[in-house]
């Protein structure tokens, strides 16, 4: 019968429980109300214990019979219970229940755990009936099952979320081979990709698609048609590559959009949507960058606990879940790299050098860099002026180089100056992370100069176009008048004008021109990056690898060698690229889409190039803290790129002949219009009150004050935080010192005790047998040991253990083997072995 129960118990835990509890219930019913005892309580417990100890040997069915006998013997009636005994019983029950709960956490061998568990369970169930808690067990089991299911669900969901993150394995591989600084670039790239996806979603879904689906189709109105003059070449690849021709007259650019207030059956407010999407992209970008910065700042504050850096690396870096040989290899590489990084940090903090020489060299380096920047700034200015002269002459008279001079010069400067800065920075001898930040700062200044020169050039062109507008407007009125006159002469009842849209003379569209310029810049930038990558990295690697066999000096170790991954250059390239997108997205809604494509290709191309052509940097350093540096730069660029766009929106009137805002005085008039016509009357009243300067100015003042207040509170919190950290550190060090002192003292005491004991032993040498002598010595010494070394004892012996370790065992053991094999924490024999350790310590 027992075996049956056992087998079913194995297959189904619930079933077994039912069986188990059923069995117990049966028993209880049998015994009726006499399951509880009073004075026989302790006796019973002991009896139970004995019964169970014996039954842990090869099971027989006699054990259960014994139990039954036991129960029948001690018939107790609950009425005979007094309140104190009830209390005692309750306490014993709680104790047992606690033991059952905590059994998992005890480091006992399985056998012992199981035996104790069985015993406690039987005790609990036996007496549960009396206390009326019989049902609790089922509820508890149900709760446990639900908790387990919930944990499993959470774990699966976390796994799913992590699996959804793209390119995770690629980045992990790169990280394990090249270290965290190179990987941080790719993580940054992936993050940018995410942002661009959202921007793409906004522009595509709310601007491009509605116009394409619900707006007037191509060719219906003049602004949506290729002019007659350009029609012949509109499909040429060269023209399309330059984003002219059909590409220009499409949803990709500002000029295509119609200024109709509401389009389609949905009454979609196109101009309003266009404007709001433009504002929304900027707002979203600000929000994301600032939120990421705040999060990074938080993390770097908390996770900065450096007190156990090496220990944690050593004991918690191996992931026991790894079962795949390739992953294991990666992990080994990553651990080695991480150790090397930590060692480098450690060594850097120990280095000290000649301050004055370093300072002089650094000043010299900065001076050189400033010269470089000034030189490049002048060069760009010179080239831009030349190109303006060329445009006035007419572009067809000049060579390809002269036409694209500005773009080419900017790209070349962007390629060679960073290398120059790199060479100069070797003078400075900074920690690699600091050197990276200086490098980034310098390249940043360089790119900024480029950017603003570009914008100045653009502004010039915009002004030219606007002047053109007035002339064209005049011409159009003349042309219309001539047409009207012409038809009137032929026929008095003039048929409606049926002029093909392609023939209508067109006004200049400076917004589309701006959009086109940005798109061309992005494309040429992308091409330049990829070509540099292929030639600079790939071709170089191929040459080094294959020419090495037939070359005079060792190419791999000597001059060209394999290139290292240029983290700073790439990061800056990415940031400036994003700046371009932010600047141009208002005028060319296709830019985010283009950027998504570009980032996607970049990710794969660069991952491949890094693994294939680059070697890890010689000095591998940790990228922690660089993250916020990148974010700070991104924020600055965001601010600087949105400035020109905002300026043009606010000051320059939109073209009269193209785009969703044509006909308005200013682009933001669309908001005013919407407020007036689409919202209820009281809304516009409220708004007009709210936009009263008398109200707005105090509000701004209030916000400025609030910002100041928050900033000063944050500063004071930070300082308090730093103080607390210092305190904790000092406390730790004091504890260490105290412990060291106590340990020394214990050693001295031990020495004295040993001396005293050995003296006593010598005296007794003649009297007692050698065996007892040493036992006495050991006894005395171990006692002192227990007193002296309080802090460094192993966890106190657990109660249940002692019955398993009869006294003589350790004595015979420790004589033979020093490192006892069957050691358990808390086992008394350890103190004996420890005793052998201490003398060796003294000899150190």
């Amino acid at each position, binding site marked *: 019968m027992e075996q049956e129960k056992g087998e079913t118990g194995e297959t189904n835990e619930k079933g077994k429980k039912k069986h188990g509890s059923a069995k117990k219930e049966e028993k209880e019913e049998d015994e009726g109300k006499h399951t509880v005892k009073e004075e026989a309580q302790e006796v019973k417990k002991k009896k139970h214990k004995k019964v169970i100890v014996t039954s842990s040997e090869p099971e027989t069915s006699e054990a259960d019979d014994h139990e039954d006998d036991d129960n029948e013997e001690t018939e107790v009636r609950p009425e005979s219970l007094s309140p104190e005994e009830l209390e005692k019983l309750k306490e014993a029950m709680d104790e047992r229940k606690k033991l059952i709960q905590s059994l998992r956490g005890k480091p006992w061998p399985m056998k012992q755990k199981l035996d104790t568990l069985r015993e406690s369970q039987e005790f609990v169930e036996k007496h549960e009936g009396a206390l009326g808690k019989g049902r609790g067990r089922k509820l508890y089991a149900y709760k446990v099952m639900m908790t387990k299911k919930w944990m499993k669900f959470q774990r699966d969901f976390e796994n799913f979320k992590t699996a959804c993150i793209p390119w995770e394995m690629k980045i992990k591989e790169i990280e394990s081979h090249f270290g965290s600084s190179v990987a941080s670039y790719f993580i940054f790239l992936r993050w940018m990709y995410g942002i661009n996806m959202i921007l793409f979603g906004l522009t595509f879904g709310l601007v491009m698609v509605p116009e394409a689906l619900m707006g007037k189709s191509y060719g219906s109105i003049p602004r949506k048609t290729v002019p007659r003059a350009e029609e012949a070449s509109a499909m040429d690849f060269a023209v399309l590559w330059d984003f002219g021709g059909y590409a220009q007259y499409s949803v990709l650019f500002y000029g295509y959009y119609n200024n109709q207030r509401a389009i389609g059956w949905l009454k979609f407010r196109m101009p309003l949507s266009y404007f709001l999407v433009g504002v929304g992209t900027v707002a979203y970008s600000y929000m994301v960058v600032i939120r990421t910065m705040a999060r990074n700042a938080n993390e770097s504050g908390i996770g900065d606990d450096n007190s156990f850096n090496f*220990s944690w690396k050593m004991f918690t870096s191996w992931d026991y879940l*790894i079962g795949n040989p390739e992953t294991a290899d990666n992990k080994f590489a990553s651990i080695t790299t991480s150790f090397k990084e930590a060692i480098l940090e450690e060594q850097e903090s120990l280095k000290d050098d000649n301050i004055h020489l370093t300072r002089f060299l650094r000043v010299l380096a900065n001076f050189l860099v400033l010269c470089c920047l000034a030189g490049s700034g002048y060069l760009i200015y010179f080239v831009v002026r030349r190109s303006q002269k060329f445009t006035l002459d007419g572009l067809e008279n000049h060579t390809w180089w002269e036409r694209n001079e500005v773009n080419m010069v900017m790209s070349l400067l962007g390629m060679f100056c960073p290398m120059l800065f790199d060479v100069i920075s070797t003078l400075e001898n900074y920690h690699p992370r600091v050197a990276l930040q200086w490098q980034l700062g310098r390249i940043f200044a360089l790119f900024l100069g480029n950017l603003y020169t570009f914008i100045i050039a653009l502004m010039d062109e915009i002004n030219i176009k606007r002047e053109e507008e007035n002339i064209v407007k005049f011409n159009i009125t003349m042309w219309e008048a001539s047409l009207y006159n012409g038809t009137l002469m032929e026929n008095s009842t003039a048929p409606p004008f049926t002029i093909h849209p392609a023939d209508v003379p067109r006004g200049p569209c400076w917004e589309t021109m701006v959009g086109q310029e940005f798109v061309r810049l992005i494309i040429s930038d992308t091409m330049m990056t990829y070509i540099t990558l292929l030639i600079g990295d790939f071709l170089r690697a191929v040459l080094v690898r294959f020419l090495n066999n037939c070359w005079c000096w060792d190419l791999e170790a000597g001059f060209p060698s394999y290139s290292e991954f240029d983290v700073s250059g790439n990061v800056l390239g990415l940031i400036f690229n994003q700046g371009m997108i932010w600047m141009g997205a208002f005028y060319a809604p296709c830019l985010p889409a283009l950027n998504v494509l570009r980032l996607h290709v970049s990710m794969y191309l660069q991952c491949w190039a890094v693994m294939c052509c680059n070697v890890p940097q010689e000095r591998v350093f940790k990228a922690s803290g660089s993250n916020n540096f990148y974010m700070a730069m991104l924020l600055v660029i965001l601010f600087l790129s949105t400035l020109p766009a905002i300026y043009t929106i606010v000051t320059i009137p939109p073209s009269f002949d193209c785009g969703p805002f044509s006909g308005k005085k200013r682009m933001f008039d669309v908001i005013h219009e919407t407020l007036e016509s689409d919202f209820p009357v009281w809304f516009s009243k409220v708004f007009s009150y709210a936009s009263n300067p008398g109200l707005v100015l105090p509000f701004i003042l209030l916000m400025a004050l609030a910002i100041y207040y928050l900033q000063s509170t944050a500063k004071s919190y930070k300082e308090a935080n730093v103080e607390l950290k210092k305190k904790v550190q000092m406390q730790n060090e004091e504890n260490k010192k105290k412990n060291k002192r106590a340990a020394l003292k214990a050693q001295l005491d031990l020495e004295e005790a040993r001396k005293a004991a050995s003296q006593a032993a010598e005296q007794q040498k003649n009297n007692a047998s050698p065996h007892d002598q040493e036992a006495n010595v050991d006894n005395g010494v171990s006692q002192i040991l227990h007193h002296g070394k309080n802090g460094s004892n192993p966890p106190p012996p657990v109660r249940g253990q002692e019955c398993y370790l009869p006294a003589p065992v350790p004595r015979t053991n420790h004589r033979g083997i020093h490192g006892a094999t069957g050691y358990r924490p808390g086992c008394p024999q350890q103190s004996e072995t420890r005793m052998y350790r201490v003398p060796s310590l003294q000899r150190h």
Partner: protein
Amino acid sequence: MGNKQTIFTDEQLDAYQVRLLHGRYHELAPHLVPMDYTNDPDCKLPLALIVNMPELKENPFRNRIVEAFSEDGAGNLSFNEFVDMFSVLSEMAPRELKAIYAFKIYDFNVDNYLCKEDLEKTLNKLTKEELTPEEVELVCEKTIEEADLDGDNKLSFTDFENMISRAPDFLSTFHIRI
């Protein structure tokens, strides 16, 4: 009586999981491991068999793990010990229990201290001996300096526990799923 079968109670272990474990244990040596534990057979599997399990194969500490859970210290596991091992390494095991066994695992010479040689061995296993001897020396010294509280130049269990209880990744890395 079949007590051995009723020992897998839900309060301690999921019986379904235990059956899984038994299946795995049996797979390792089908001719040695009986399917029926009614008579409490005394069979132990040698270290070499257990260490070849896919969950343990790539682990640099696999030998030490199995030795730490075996009663004879040589790595021969009975089924009870096998279950014990995976139970401690599962994600439900409490932190203190894991710390105790982690200490045993990293203690190569089984003297109840993590002395310098233990640390060196651990480090070499972790990095596949790619670090130079000076670097190994530096790391071990720094580790002892960081964690040793009582000044005996090696880590006792209290030192280890103090250090590991603050480690953020300990629970997630010291975990084997089966």
